[in-house]
């Protein structure tokens, strides 16, 4: 018996069936389900609206839905910013202290300078930086985010934002995948599997990177605190910093919409498809599960990944910084060579170099940058508080507000990290889309920062 014969037979059988046979099947399925359920379920109360529905009227209302969403986002980021600042400097003091001790010990027992330097000023310093910069925000952000997730709030976000995505030609569930992108863009890309339509799924994959992931949050938080919020009274610092980060996130959302709109009118033409999304009941989050998910599955997982790239990155920078060229070193020479391009974007050569070294993981941009700024000797450890960072960057390396703003924009818009690019390739099984994801985001980042830098200079702001 051949497959074709069976197909032909099925075809002829189908043609002999009365026209409405499909509807008959579906109808009998639904009728049967209804009857069975009617017999098995009895309602003992005649409450029409329960508590869930009352809350939903508020959080999914066309008037209060979006403001509540923004407030919750602001609250999470404010908690993260204000908590992270405190913990971050403690961790920095402890870890850099260990570095001093280790270096002194190695010198004392007569280990060659280049081994001590490579291990303590390269590998260890890279690790210490990544942990002190990344761990505190994650420890606060992930539990808060997981709390909202377990509560059942995420589908409400999708509900509120659906009409906007529809207008751009994208899928309403894209807001779910964006929410996952806050944790990690690679996870966000995997989460796009919930989108049925391949066209809309591709849009969600390609634009996911415009949501700043946890690897990029520390950069945004540091810049927002050190530069933007520094000119305000201390009492307002964390509020202003949080507002700045929320602003950056909103710019990212704006670019998501723009990119989705452009994509669905060019390479991914089509209309938004309809879908149903259940609003699950609110459930009381389970504290131990939140802690497990956010600490073990998320924080430790992401931090471990960052450490794996930070150690070799630290080593590379140390080596580059210790290969002498004329009266300078190789790291400086490369940074100087990249400087004209960096300045064009309102950045500088060191930042561009840091981004190139940090392609495997965005998390290590700030540490890399700091280590290059601090130079070859690196006998001092990193700055441990905001004033020291401000001094190092502004007084020592000529940063302006434009540098800070453009670095935030660049961090938000530039290409995905290597893990995310690999995930995009695996999910789409296409080199073309993986490449487009890089070209599109990096192109946007370069154009936008070039424009802001040019405008700021034309207007004489810097």
């Amino acid at each position: 018996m051949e497959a074709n014969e069976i197909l032909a037979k099925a075809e002829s059988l189908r043609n002999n069936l009365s026209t409405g046979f499909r509807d008959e099947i579906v109808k009998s399925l639904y009728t049967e389900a209804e009857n069975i359920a009617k017999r098995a379920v009895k309602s003992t109360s005649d409450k029409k609206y329960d508590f869930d529905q009352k809350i939903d009227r508020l959080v999914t209302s066309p008037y209060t839905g979006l403001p509540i969403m923004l407030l919750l986002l602001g609250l999470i980021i404010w908690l993260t910013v204000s908590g992270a600042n405190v913990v971050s400097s403690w961790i920095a003091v402890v870890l850099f202290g260990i570095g001093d001790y280790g270096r002194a010990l190695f010198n004392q027992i007569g280990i060659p300078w280049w081994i001590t330097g490579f291990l303590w000023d390269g590998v260890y310093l890279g690790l210490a930086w990544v942990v002190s910069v990344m761990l505190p925000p994650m420890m606060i952000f992930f539990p808060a985010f997981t709390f909202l997730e377990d509560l059942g709030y995420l589908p409400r976000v999708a509900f509120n934002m659906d009409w906007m995505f529809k207008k751009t030609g994208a899928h309403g569930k894209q807001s779910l995948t964006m929410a996952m992108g806050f944790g990690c863009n690679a996870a966000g890309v995997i989460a796009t599997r919930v989108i049925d339509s391949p066209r809309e799924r591709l849009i969600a994959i390609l634009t996911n990177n415009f949501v700043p992931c946890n690897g990029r949050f520390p950069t945004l938080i540091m810049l927002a605190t050190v530069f933007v919020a520094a000119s305000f009274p201390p009492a307002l610092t964390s509020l202003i910093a949080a507002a700045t980060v929320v602003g950056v996130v909103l710019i990212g959302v704006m670019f998501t919409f723009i990119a989705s709109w452009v994509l669905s009118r060019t390479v991914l033409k089509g209309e938004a498809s309809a879908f149903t999304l259940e609003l699950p009941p609110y459930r009381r989050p389970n504290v131990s599960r939140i802690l497990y998910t956010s600490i073990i599955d998320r924080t430790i997982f992401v931090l471990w990944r960052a450490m794996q790239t930070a150690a070799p990155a630290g080593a590379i920078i140390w080596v580059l910084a210790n290969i002498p060229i004329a009266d300078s070193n190789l790291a400086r020479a490369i940074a100087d060579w990249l400087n004209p391009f960096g300045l064009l974007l309102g950045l500088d050569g060191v930042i561009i170099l840091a981004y190139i070294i940090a392609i495997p993981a965005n998390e290590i941009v700030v540490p890399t940058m700091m280590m290059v700024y601090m130079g070859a000797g690196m006998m001092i450890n990193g700055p441990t508080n905001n004033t020291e960072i401000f001094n190092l960057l502004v007084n020592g390396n000529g940063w302006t507000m434009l540098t800070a703003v453009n670095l935030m924009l660049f961090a938000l818009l530039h290409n995905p990290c290597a893990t995310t690019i690999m995930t995009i390739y695996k999910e789409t099984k296409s080199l073309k889309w993986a490449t487009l994801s890089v070209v599109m985001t990096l192109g946007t980042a370069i154009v936008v920062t070039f424009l802001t830098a040019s405008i700021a200079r034309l207007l004489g702001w810097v």
Partner: protein
Amino acid sequence: MTNTKTVLPTEHCETCPAFTQLEQMGIKVGDFDRVIALAGNPNTGKSTLFNALTGLKQHTGNWPGKTVTRAEGGFEFNKIRYKLVDLPGTYSLLSASQDEEVARDFILFGQPSCTIVVTDATSLERNLNLVLQVMEITENVVVAINLMDEAKRKGLEVDPRSLSRDLGIPAIAITARSGEGIHTLLGAVADVIEGNIVTKPLRVGGTPEFQKAVNELVPMIEQMAPGIPNARWLAIRLLDGDARVQKALSTGELADIVSRQQRADVQFSGKMSVEGRQ
């Protein structure tokens, strides 16, 4: 796992927690005697039940579509080792989205010893559509009526016996979050597999002429691919004009799918433990 719930009078002695043993085996699923699939609508608590049984920490989140690939884990119950496969939540087995395909292919061709369909007690009617569709594919089905606590809070009373009688398969009330009813559920699963309970799944098959057409097609499919499970379901899909099933049949992909799904992929479990983190 310790079960501190009081023994309900409806539970049989042989399934009472005092006499049964549940041992979580995590991802150590190398040697197993039986395979159980967990199906159900999105957000009905499949992953919560999966975690309760295996002791794993598959990510659970309160939004539909959290599980996008299948996850595997193991547990031992009454000295029998089970491999449990957590499938993505689906409303039906007919559409072509990726997560529905994962679920459908496994129930169809993975030949689990038993499929547990996890349903939401608070919206049973909608959930039953999937139950009826799974029953089209296999006779070894047990319905778990989950979220009984939420149903109670909403003032709903669900009668498992009525459901069981109508469907012709065991229906067990559980609350996966607290572990209530899980032993009874596993007892029913074991009984179905061992044949102590003979299921008579209700088949809602449309008109008599349609049934006749199905019966004509089934022997042809069985002749072409001897030993193929679910010839009946394939016949229905072919009559419906399911493009994917047609393509799978003509390209020989069907045979590939069958062998791939039946492979005891231990490496897959290892991979999941990395990929499953989100």
